[in-house]
């Protein structure tokens, strides 16, 4: 069950964001980091794959094109975590996850649903939050509940839009370890839009660096990350060094002069 992204184009009205994005095949068990500057199209790609934006091109998962598949099929296969945090509401965290599971899997038996929910709260280490109202949780805690809503469904393709943006260091690591564990166990694929390059380099098997509507670089972190790429994709002067554990480590030295086409 591999994922093929072939000449994907997405536009907001007349403004194209992705123009012919193509990537090498992504295989089961892979964590794929989506990198790129603000506005490079990371979230747009994830939303298009989740069926929330019209797109052309092909996104083939397990022989089916996600862009033409039925909503029900896509829902079974794909789990999408939006960039926004789940709203602070009087719902219990447990109920938020239960509702997400029930909305997508109405056929599930009660006992199975309960076991799945308990399992995900346990695995993510947030069982203490389960019976608290969402309105009483911090932003980071709500982000963890949002992640639980996606992981509990055990989708084959995980689309996570900045899943660690509201988390402290410990929880950032916990999240990525959990996602890596689930992807490995289920033979799934995770596409993770993320701003922390070093975190991506530490956990992801493959990086897709987006810019100018397409893939600027792709491959294992050690190959994809180069000073030239940093300059090209982010407009910074930086270095890529190897840390003591062998992972590439990006050190940003200074912002390069921003060209007109890269301004926010």
């Amino acid at each position, binding site marked *: 069950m591999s994922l093929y992204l072939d000449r994907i184009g997405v536009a907001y009205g007349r403004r194209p964001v992705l123009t012919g994005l193509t990537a090498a095949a992504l295989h089961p068990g892979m964590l794929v980091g989506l990198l790129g500057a603000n506005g490079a199209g990371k979230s747009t790609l994830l939303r298009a794959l989740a069926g929330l934006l019209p797109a052309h091109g092909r996104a083939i998962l397990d022989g089916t094109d996600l862009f033409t598949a039925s909503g029900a099929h896509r829902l079974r296969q794909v*789990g999408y975590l*939006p960039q926004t945090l789940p709203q602070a509401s009087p719902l*219990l965290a447990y109920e938020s996850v239960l509702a997400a599971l029930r*909305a997508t899997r109405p056929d599930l038996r009660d006992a199975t649903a309960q076991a799945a929910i308990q*399992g995900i709260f346990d695995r993510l280490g947030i069982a203490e939050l389960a019976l608290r109202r969402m309105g009483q949780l911090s932003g980071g805690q709500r982000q963890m509940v949002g992640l639980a809503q996606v992981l509990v469904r055990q989708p084959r393709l995980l689309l996570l839009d900045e899943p660690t943006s509201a988390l402290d260091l410990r929880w950032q690591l916990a999240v990525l370890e959990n996602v890596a564990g689930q992807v490995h166990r289920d033979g799934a694929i995770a596409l993770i839009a993320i701003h922390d390059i070093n975190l991506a380099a530490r956990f992801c098997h493959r990086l897709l660096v987006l810019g100018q509507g397409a893939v600027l670089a792709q491959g294992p972190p050690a190959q994809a990350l180069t000073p030239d790429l940093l300059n090209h994709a982010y407009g910074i002067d930086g270095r890529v060094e190897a840390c003591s554990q062998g992972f590439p480590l990006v050190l940003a030295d200074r912002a390069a002069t921003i060209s007109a086409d890269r301004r926010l």
Partner: protein
Amino acid sequence: MTAQTLAAGYRRFILGRMVILGGLGLAVVLAFALDVATGPSGIRLAELLKSADDPALAVILWDIRLPQATMAVLVGAALALAGAEMQTTLNNSLASPFTLGLTNAATLGAACAIVFDLALPGLPVLWSVPALAFCFALGATLLVNVLARSQGAGADTVVLFGIAMVFVMNALLWLVQYVASADAVQQIVFWTMGSLTRSSWEKVALVGLVLALSLPLSLRQVWAMTTLRGGEDHARSFGIGVERLRLVVLVRVSLLAAAAVSFVGTIGFIGLVGPHLARLVVGEDHRFYLPGAALAGALVMSLASTASKSLVPGLVLPVGIVTALVGIPLFMALLLGQRRRS
């Protein structure tokens, strides 16, 4: 917390909520009984029940008190259920059936019937006021829905069109009142105060039918609506067609609220307070929240009906006045109490 204690904890929550719903149901039954036992004539329920042979007492029981008390329960439940669904789909805790200008349209319809002697063909004259109120309310909300759909049916768009509708309907109402006779204006004013004294078994049956048809449809969408409380983005990511859900709910809510206000007039507070009370006691899991809101609305309305007959001996005050005067301080106390506790 282990998986076992989590499961047990959640089961306790569920049990607690079911007990609360049961308690609310019991409170509605008691409030209904109290409402039937109360009347401006001062005749107690025991006397009414013992004097089945007396036609005058039978009329008081069967034609006045029971239909009014039943109507109070049904209207309260309908308005509160409508309010709860609107607050969820518009993601706005201030939303109520009034938000879309529905009540204002109903008032305009009633005013047209009163001032211009309009009637719908085939309907008895007595029904012309509620019938036109219903038609206007339904027409206004359908118009809001159509306009909102043309603009993408976002929550803010629906609310904006609703507010516009409120102003348009008010302006038209003032125009009708401007050309109306003094008697007609007085009738319109009385209608807008909301009163249960216009109740009859036929009207009760109609409101009951609309409620009975709506509630199961609402309960079929509890998961989708619960998911929506996490935010539109998240609901969409779970395959919920948010715009479609919103329009379906708004049409259903419009029917519910239009049926209620067309028979009893403007009763504004229940659609707001019912959902809030339910949220306080059973949270926002819509499996409990929607029935809880309906029961809370029925309870408040039933108590208000009793109060409207008891506050001034021998006189029945318009129930719309009572819901506001008695209910709002109680509601504020509950909300402030909850804020202090949290």
